[in-house]
């Protein structure tokens, strides 16, 4: 009698475990990398004009060496090596989308500003990051093409300049000079400079070594 009861219990537990295993096997993969922000809220966040910074605003951040911002260059490593905005780090777009963002966007107090050559990659990345809960995501409008138009090709035309225009022109000139200096370095020096600016993989806490 006692034996039959024990067998009955074992059968039930076996069936429960088998069914649980089946259910777990049907679990969707990568469920932890799905957007967590509600669609309506995400839409209003990405349409907020404040997520988009102009080239002038980025130039000012660079000239002021603003430590509360971090520029992320989404282009290929080859393009990044040829030229990049001073202070930026390179995360190729494909890598950015495929990786766990907590590796890169570790500091909640920092504004992460994405840029690429134009508007596509940077805006995709910004929405992607915001969707995953990284609210501190921004874009540089127009990318490097706009950077060249606005900052590198800055010219003052006219006889009189207002104080505001003067300040703007000065910032652009400083940013352009910095851009030229950094990107004119010999390859060996540039490689060292870039290496010092790289993201390092976030170290895992605990676990076996």
């Amino acid at each position: 009698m006692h034996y039959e009861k024990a067998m009955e219990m074992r059968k039930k537990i076996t069936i429960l475990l088998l069914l649980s295993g089946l259910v777990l096997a049907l679990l969707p993969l990568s469920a932890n990398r799905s957007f967590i922000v509600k669609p309506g809220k995400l839409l209003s966040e990405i349409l907020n004009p404040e997520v988009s910074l102009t080239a002038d605003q980025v130039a000012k951040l660079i000239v002021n060496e603003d430590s509360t911002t971090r520029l992320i260059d989404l282009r290929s490593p080859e393009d990044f090596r040829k030229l990049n905005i001073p202070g930026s780090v390179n995360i190729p777009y494909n890598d950015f989308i495929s990786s766990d963002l907590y590796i890169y966007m570790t500091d909640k107090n920092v504004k992460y500003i994405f840029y690429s050559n134009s508007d596509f990659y940077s805006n995709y990345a910004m929405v992607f990051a915001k969707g995953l809960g990284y609210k501190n995501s921004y874009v540089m409008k127009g990318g490097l093409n706009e950077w060249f138009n606005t900052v590198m090709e800055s010219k003052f035309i006219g006889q009189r300049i207002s104080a505001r225009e003067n300040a703007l022109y000065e910032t652009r000139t400083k940013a352009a000079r910095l851009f030229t200096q950094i990107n004119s370095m010999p390859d060996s020096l540039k490689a060292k400079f870039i290496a010092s600016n790289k993201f390092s993989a976030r170290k895992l806490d605990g676990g076996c070594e």
Partner: protein
Amino acid sequence: MNTLKKYGFVSAIFLILLLAVIYKSFSHSGFRYDAPKLAAPSFQGSNIITAEQIPGLQNALIIEMNNSDALKGRYNEITLKINPDSILERNNFRKIEKCKGPVILVSSENSIAARMWMLLSQKGLKNIFILSEDKDFEVLKKKFRPDSLSMPEHI
């Protein structure tokens, strides 16, 4: 019936577990799971088309946002004007969802179209494209001259 009674306890636990898994699987705030996979068409620009490609598309739907004049009044019969801030409204979203062919996002700003593309793709919509006048996808149009303060030249 006797079997069901016999394994009632097991069935109840299984049912609760199954419901919990289904809820967890499908309640990602209205977005589908595996965000990187849904973003994949954006990697090489395969989600971008030009105006010349539109005639070759069947059952296409054009979503015109921000009063873009990229198409210059062409294809009015397959065009819907939807502002970006109302793209998720039920009626608008259903029209996009029900489209049997490609959905083409048109905007005066590539940035807006790109953002909407990512948003809609993550909602699980496939066959979404961005209309771009520029065939060159993410190309730097300026040339940088090192060791010089002269103006960069156009490529």
